[in-house]
C-alpha cells in the first residue's frame, strides 16, 4: 500500500513515540512544524535515554542507562527542494545549534523524500558526525539509506515504513 508523504511522516512519528522508538530512547514530547533558525522541520520529538518505568525497570534504567537528552527530527523533501549536500548541511547545522543550546547529546534526522539520486546518496553517506544519525526514506519505494554513524545504522532497524 502506497502512503503519501504526510501519512508516512505521521506513521514515523507514531512509531517513534509509541512503538519501536522506545527501544532507542524515551521520546516524550512532539512538536509539528518546528523551526530552528531558518529550517522548518516537519516533526521534532524531545526525549531522554533514561527510560521511566516501574520499580525494577526504573532502577535498572537509573543504574545502566546514560542520562542523555536526545532529539529526533523529520524533514520532508519535495521535487523542488531535493536533498543535496548543501540542504542537508544547513539542516544539520541547525540541529547542531539546537543540540548546543539544549544540551542534547544525540540527534536523529529522518528525511522523507522521493527518489534516491546520486546527490542524495552522496550527501547522506558522506556525513561523518557521530552524534547525529541521518536516514533518508524514499516514500514511493520505501528504500532507506543511512549515514555511516552508529546512530544512523541503529535508526534503520527501528523505523518501519
Amino acid at each position, binding site marked *: 500500500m502506497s502512503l503519501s508523504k504526510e501519512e508516512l511522516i505521521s506513521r514515523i512519528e507514531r512509531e517513534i513515540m509509541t512503538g519501536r522508538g522506545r527501544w532507542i530512547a524515551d521520546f516524550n*514530547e512532539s512538536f*509539528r*512544524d518546528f523551526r530552528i533558525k531558518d529550517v522548518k522541520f516537519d516533526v521534532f520529538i524531545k526525549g531522554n535515554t533514561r527510560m521511566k518505568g516501574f520499580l525494577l525497570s526504573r532502577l535498572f534504567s537509573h543504574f545502566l542507562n546514560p542520562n542523555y537528552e536526545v532529539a529526533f527530527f523529520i524533514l520532508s523533501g519535495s521535487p523542488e527542494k531535493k536533498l543535496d549536500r548543501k540542504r542537508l548541511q544547513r539542516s544539520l547545522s541547525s540541529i547542531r545549534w539546537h543540540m548546543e543550546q539544549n544540551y542534547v547529546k544525540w540527534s536523529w534526522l529522518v528525511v522523507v523524500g522521493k527518489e534516491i539520486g546520486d546527490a542524495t546518496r552522496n550527501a547522506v553517506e558522506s556525513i561523518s558526525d557521530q552524534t547525529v544519525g541521518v536516514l533518508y526514506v524514499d516514500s514511493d519505494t520505501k528504500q532507506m539509506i543511512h549515514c555511516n554513524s552508529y546512530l544512523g545504522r541503529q535508526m534503520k532497524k527501528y523505523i518501519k515504513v
Partner: protein
Amino acid sequence: MAHLYSPTQLSSFFKSFFVIFAIQAFVVLLTPYEIVDPIRAQILIFNISTSLILGWVLYKRASHLTFTYNENDLTLRRGKSDVINHRWSDFSKVSLARTEHGEFSVRLYRDGDFLEIPVSKLKLDPFLFRDEAKKLIESHR
C-alpha cells in the same frame, strides 16, 4: 460547532471508590470483634455499596473531566469547581506529550507556560486532536 467530551474515567472513579472503602474498612477494624463478627457479610455489602455511591459522588465532584471547545475557545473542567477557560488565540504553540504511564496530553503553550489537556483520559485520539488544536491556534494568528 461545539465539541463536548466527558467520558467516565474509570481509574479516577476506582481511586475515589477505594478511598471511601478504605475509610470504612478502618472504622470496621476499630469496632470490637463481638459486634462485627455476626454481621460480617452485611457489613461488607454495606461498605461496597456505600463506597460505590459515595465514590461516584466524590469522583464527580473532584476529578471528572469535561472538555468543550469550539472554533474560538476551550473549557476544561475538573470536578465541580476547577474550571479553566481560554481562547485558542491565547496560545502560540502546541505539542503532544506522553507521560511515563503511556498516557498522552496535548500541551498548549503561551509565554513559556503551558496548559495540559489530558487527551487520553478524555478518550480523544492524541495525534488527531493535536493536529486540530494546531489548526485552531494557527487560524487565530
